[in-house]
């Protein structure tokens, strides 16, 4: 049963069949920030797709044939081509599908989006470290590091004087970094944007975007998922279903 809110597939499950023509499949997980990037792009570009959720605490053996690293997201098309690494999946979708281009055509503007992406690059691992350590030790150092990374992004907005990271309309870079900002509230890390007013404003503007709000994750549900996930519970990925 394929769908963004479907139960995940786990060890012992039968591998899904080939992807029907005219559709692209994404192997995902409902609470995964990396997979959310791909879902945002699929939705923003109106690409017909099916979702297969993977139980990341009890992965099916067949999934390693889709991605030897066993991680989500992975794209699979009807020619059997597999693409993984979230940023690569997003760029692939933008190049392979018509409609609104999320990355600019201008080589310099495109490079600028990638440079901003590099500036953001320490955030996911900092957040992951914080999650693993917050119940065991003092994480004020980690929070400070996060604040530092966020100030770099604030500086970008200050220099560009635009509402979004790629200009005056929402584009690829905004979707790529959004999932971590979406989770700040649930993780009680809102203080890290306390001194970055432009970033806070950007977050508020992002929430109003129809693509972003369609994929919004309930704060409480995410918190429960995290608790189960950190306990390595095989129930984590299906929490709330």
């Amino acid at each position, binding site marked *: 049963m394929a769908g963004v809110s479907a139960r995940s597939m786990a060890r012992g499950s039968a591998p899904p069949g080939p992807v029907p023509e005219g559709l692209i499949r994404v192997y995902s997980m409902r609470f995964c920030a990396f997979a959310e990037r791909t879902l945002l792009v699929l939705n923003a570009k109106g690409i017909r797709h099916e979702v297969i959720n993977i139980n990341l605490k009890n992965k099916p053996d067949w999934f390693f044939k889709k991605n030897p*690293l066993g991680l989500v997201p992975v794209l699979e098309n009807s020619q059997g081509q597999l693409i993984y*690494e979230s940023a*690569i999946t997003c760029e*692939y979708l933008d190049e392979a599908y018509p409609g609104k281009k999320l990355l600019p055509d201008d*080589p*310099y503007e495109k490079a600028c989006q990638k440079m901003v992406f590099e500036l953001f690059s320490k955030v996911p691992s900092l957040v992951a470290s914080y999650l693993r350590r917050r119940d065991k030790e003092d994480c004020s150092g980690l929070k400070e590091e996060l604040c530092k990374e966020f100030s770099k992004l604030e500086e970008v907005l200050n220099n560009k004087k635009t509402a979004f990271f790629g200009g005056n309309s929402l584009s690829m870079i905004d979707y790529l970094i959004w999932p971590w900002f979406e989770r700040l509230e649930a993780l009680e890390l809102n203080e890290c944007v306390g001194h970055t007013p432009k970033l806070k404003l950007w977050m508020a503007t992002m929430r109003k975007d129809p693509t972003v709000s369609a994929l919004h994750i309930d704060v409480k549900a995410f918190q429960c998922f995290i608790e189960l996930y950190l306990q390595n519970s095989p129930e984590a990925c299906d929490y709330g279903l």
Partner: protein
Amino acid sequence: MRRRLEIQCEDETRSLGKGSCPPGPVPEGLIRIYSMRFCPYSHRTRLVLKAKGIRHEVVNINLRNKPEWYYTKHPFGQIPVLENSQCQLIYESVITCEYLDDAYPGRRLFPYDPYERARQKMLLELFCKILDYQNTTYFGGDCISMIDYLLWPWFERLDVYGIADCVNHTPALRLWIAAMKQDPTVCALLIDKNIFQGFLNLYFQNNPQAFDFGLP
């Protein structure tokens, strides 16, 4: 020796350090790369500049004694950085390589097909992890392309670092190295082993003369 220096002369200039004058604006029709002769990351960008025949000038930076003005080019003073005549600055080695491929006509290094492009990018990610991913002569197929240039600088240095033995158990990779050494672009930028050794020795002693080792 002289012939090699002739071929490489545009890259072989003394590095600029603290107290140096900032270079002027980049002339029209040219792109500038801030680089260092022995750095594998800027080597990537120089390979792409060469492979695409892009007219460029090289400004080498003394990485142990960086000019103050260099921080206006890169916030942390890293290389490589590209600067064009519109004063646009691009950094991060992979981003500079992709920018050059997009911005300049002629020989395309990244494939046209979106899936093939994605595949090269996935390969780059897996660079250190999965060496048996390669089943063709070059990482992108039967012809040399972007991914080969992006990986090359580290393999060229294996010999000098004294860890060439690590490809003993990967015959496909050894063949790839041999094939790469036949490529005219790779050859044109090949670093002399002795010069590189000399650089390394001085570098590990924190000697700021390191970056200009081998220059007259």
